[in-house]
């Protein structure tokens, strides 16, 4: 059978793609190996993997797009995947939506163009990379990775296979509107300091053991994470405080807000060169220093300056939010493409092959800032970071936190 490889190239993708010469451009899987497929510009066949609260919320958003057809839900918790399936079937007035316990079964479906990943963080990299290999585009909830190395591996896979991989922070632009334009446009002069408020790092999990209920594949829920006994709250979105599954509030809201701060200051393609934990003296807050001299401060729960809420930018000529001179000049700035916020941006990019607003490289850079902060907090020492090579300098023991071996046979291969 003649393989088809239809492609409608559009301007925006090329514009973005030239930034990365490593990016080959591949069409959605629906046009690979199938004759007579509906053109991808008209229909995007999707599956949702991870159908807890957030995954279902995202799925609901995608169901609102007429060009998206959700065909499968996948979760190791039967109640979650069935509930999501019912939602899909209700939307389409059909009984066609399939359910899966194991995401690898979804990957074998050639008709699926794209997957929405709404699982806990410890699954994000594995599923994203497998999807890329299978020629599927990915919308992955934030924080996009559990470790810095996982984030880089996700970027590599996206580039190698030419997939559209969007992170899931809807707040970088959604919550901050014109602030990045003001900051980039020079409204506050040279940005010197940015105070970013979000939660603290994750830690160990001390939840007691509970019996595994019927319909829960606990081993699959844990997947690559270290083994621990079952506890029901972990299935209800309460995994975030625990290091084996998440980076805590630091990566949860940090993925949004550090992402926004990096974007507004134009540092979203790089990273800090130094991260210093609070010492109760000269460094009251966890402090990131970038090579251009800009400093970011983590305004956390334990160490914070209460008057700074959300994100505060301080520059040579003013402050945002706060007082600053008028900023009238034109500023070209990336934004969502298509209609419908970050979800519409993804849908648009799947069709046009443009890089999405929260492209995985940008997402990885944002979560890297959060992860470095966590490592500095955990180890309570200053880290020097090379954002080009993505290596911690002069501290091989701290470098061991850049990745974690996975349980059982799971690996990012």
């Amino acid at each position, binding site marked *: 059978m003649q*393989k*088809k*490889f*239809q*492609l*409608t*190239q559009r*301007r925006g993708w*090329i*514009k973005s*793609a*030239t930034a990365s*010469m490593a990016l*080959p*451009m*591949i*069409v959605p*899987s629906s046009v*690979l190996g199938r004759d007579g497929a509906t053109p991808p510009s008209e229909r995007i066949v999707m599956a949702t993997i991870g159908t807890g609260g957030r995954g279902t919320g995202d799925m609901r958003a995608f169901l609102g797009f007429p060009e998206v057809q959700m065909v499968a839900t996948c979760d190791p918790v039967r109640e979650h995947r069935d509930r999501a399936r019912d939602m899909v079937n209700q939307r389409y007035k059909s009984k066609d939506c399939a359910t899966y316990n194991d995401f690898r079964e979804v990957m074998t479906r050639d008709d699926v163009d794209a997957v929405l990943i709404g699982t806990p963080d410890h699954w994000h990299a594995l599923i994203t990379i497998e999807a890329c290999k*299978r*020629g599927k585009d990915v919308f992955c909830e934030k924080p996009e990775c559990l470790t810095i190395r996982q984030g880089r591996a996700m970027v*590599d896979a996206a580039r190698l*296979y*030419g997939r559209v991989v969007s992170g899931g922070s809807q707040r970088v632009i959604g919550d901050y509107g014109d602030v990045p334009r003001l900051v980039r446009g020079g409204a506050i002069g040279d940005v010197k300091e940015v105070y970013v408020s979000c939660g603290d790092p994750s*830690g*160990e999990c*001390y*939840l007691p053991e509970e019996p595994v209920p019927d319909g829960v594949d606990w081993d699959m829920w844990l997947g690559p994470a*270290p*083994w621990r006994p079952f506890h029901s709250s972990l299935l209800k979105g*309460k995994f975030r*405080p625990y290091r084996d599954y998440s980076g805590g509030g630091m990566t949860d809201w940090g993925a949004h807000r550090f992402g926004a701060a990096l974007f507004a200051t134009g540092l979203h393609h790089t990273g800090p060169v130094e991260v210093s934990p609070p010492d109760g003296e000269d460094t009251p807050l966890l402090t990131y220093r970038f090579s251009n001299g800009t400093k970011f401060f983590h305004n956390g*729960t*334990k160490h914070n300056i*209460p008057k700074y809420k*959300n994100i505060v930018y301080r520059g040579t000529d*003013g402050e945002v939010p706060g*007082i*600053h001179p*008028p*900023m*009238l000049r*034109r*500023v070209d700035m990336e934004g969502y493409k298509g209609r419908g916020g970050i979800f519409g941006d993804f849908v648009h990019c799947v069709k046009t092959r443009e890089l999405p607003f929260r492209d995985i490289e940008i997402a990885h850079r944002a979560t890297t800032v959060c992860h470095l902060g966590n490592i500095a907090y*955990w*180890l*309570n020492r200053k880290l020097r970071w090379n954002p080009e090579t993505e290596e911690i300098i*002069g501290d*091989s*023991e*701290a470098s*061991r936190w850049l990745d*974690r*071996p*996975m*349980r*059982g*046979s799971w*690996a990012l*291969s």
Partner: protein
Amino acid sequence: MSNYYLPLHFALIGLFAFPASATADENDAKLLHKNLQNFSSDDLTRQKNSREQWQQRCFELSRPANSSQRSAACREMMRALSGKLTRSTSLFLLQQVERIGGDESVEGLVRLLGDADKIVADAARRALANNPSEKAAHSLERALAIANSDTQIVQLINSLAFRKDYQDLETLTLFLDHSSPQVVVAAAAAVSQAATDEAAQILIESLRLQQSKLIAPSALALAAAIREAGNLAQARRLYEAVLRSNPSGVAHAVAIFGAIACSGDSVADDLLARLNDGDEFVRQAAINFVSHVDESELDAVLRGQSDLPNDARTALFIALGTRRVAAAQEFLIEAASNTVDDGLRIAAIEALGDVGGSDVVPLLLSLLDTSNEGVAKAAAKALGDTQDPQVDKRVFRELESTNDNVRRETLISILNQRRWPKLADVAVDELGSDSEAARRRSIGILTRLGTVEHVTAALLLVDQIPSQDFGRFSKAIVAICSRIPNSNTQAQPVIEAYASADRSDRPRLLSIIGTIGGKNAADFVNQRLEGNSGEEAEAAVTALANWPDASVVGTLLKIAQRGETESQRIRALRGIARVAVLPNSPLSESQQLKVLTQAMKLTTRLDERKLILDRAKAVDLIESVRFIRPFLDNTDLREVACKSITQIGRIKSLRDQYPELVDDLRRIIEVVQDEKVRERAKNALLEI
């Protein structure tokens, strides 16, 4: 009893001698053993405290200067692990060893590979994988040599690959022809990590094997790495080996792309040849590469473009625009003017927006009139994108010379896209338009481009703004005024407009003044309060209630106590509830609570009480909880009280310090109707 790694255990046990009594730092050893029995305590607080203490010490020991103490502590942990421990304690200790263990831990970890509990054995394997010692790599390698199940083999290969220091490709090569697909995938991935010529050669050979489809992803990853390192010839050999292996669609496309990228001096020839290929798949895959053509190759591709199929030319035009290749202008003008194919024509027009100067404006303006909607939209977009500043004036002249509303709308959109500052003048003129769309567009333009002069002009038209647009209009004025550097005088343009405004417009202006805030505004609003009554005084109270910060709390409290009308007193109370806890409030949290408490005493209605209780949740103090607590007994206010206390109860440090808050949360779980609040209260109590 299953013994997961039992064969390994017996095979490896003799490789190492158990260390003689280690000279661990006494304090660390004491600390470990003091805590050891509590690591699996049923009392979770005790378990947590003991584990946290030891873990913290482990983090501290991982400092570069603490190498010998770190090593001693790890020996102590390994000694403990050799004894009888619960699974939970073993896993906890192994996780610490995974993070900080070195040479000293390897022997003990190898023993644990043979543990009867396969969960413990797997944790030991991970600890070896993350152990920087060469001995750890050798141990894993030896274990791999004698592993007797596919699962073990996969896990051990993955562990070696994780280390990234494993170079013994010969051993791994043996597994590339394995009967288990999982083993082949793992081995290929591990080989590709080496990123050397030898690794490339091994994978090229293995792509001839039956399992080539399993190897192709790793071969492509390796080829990309080699290409990035500059070895194009070797990378191309890998890509071609993948192409020969009849790969799947995705791998096939990636390999075509890679092969072109590695063509060296003949990229343009290779690309043009594939763009003309009879196989549609090859042609489409090659199109992917067009935007990646090196500058030096572009000329050659440009010369050959006219013979290419339209889909390839379209991709090329897009790439030329993106790169702003000025030399392409003549090709683009030709295609924009004369091409029949819509896709190609649109690509050419849009590229002109990036490439062209003011000399392409006449062509683009003429295309705005075409009946082909796609072409007209592309022309508008190109006009919006063109960099030449002369374009602003040319488009504005066109705007001045036309009365056609549709065309005016298009031209205004273009100027708006270009952020042309003088467009704000046009926007003010259109504020009084009968068209809702035109009015709203004008307000949007003013928000972005307006200056103080535009505020003055716009406020003269305030009576013409329909009530449904007044909110937007007000935000636009506030946005412009917020650009005045001195925050005390930001409301001045509106204050000045107030003097000459009709009496009927003044309440609207006062509400805008309140939203802007600042010292001048406060003085002005206070004057309106003192010297006036009726509508103006009512509007002044509304202005204070809209204030952007808590500086007017004192005035609002006075009005709440002694306001002339009930309506004023109610609005003042609602205003207090709003401004007292605004972010960036100059009030301390205690002061915020004091204000809310005072306001509560002045309330007469349920609505305001609910509002104040709701806002109290923003004050993260135990005193707030004490303020709210009595309302748990009030059936009308219980739900909001539950919600606010639960919100404060999320703060762990408060819960730890004040058991009364924990009691409140327990009570809330019993009494609250709102399931979400109950769930939140439960979750707060779960967090230890």
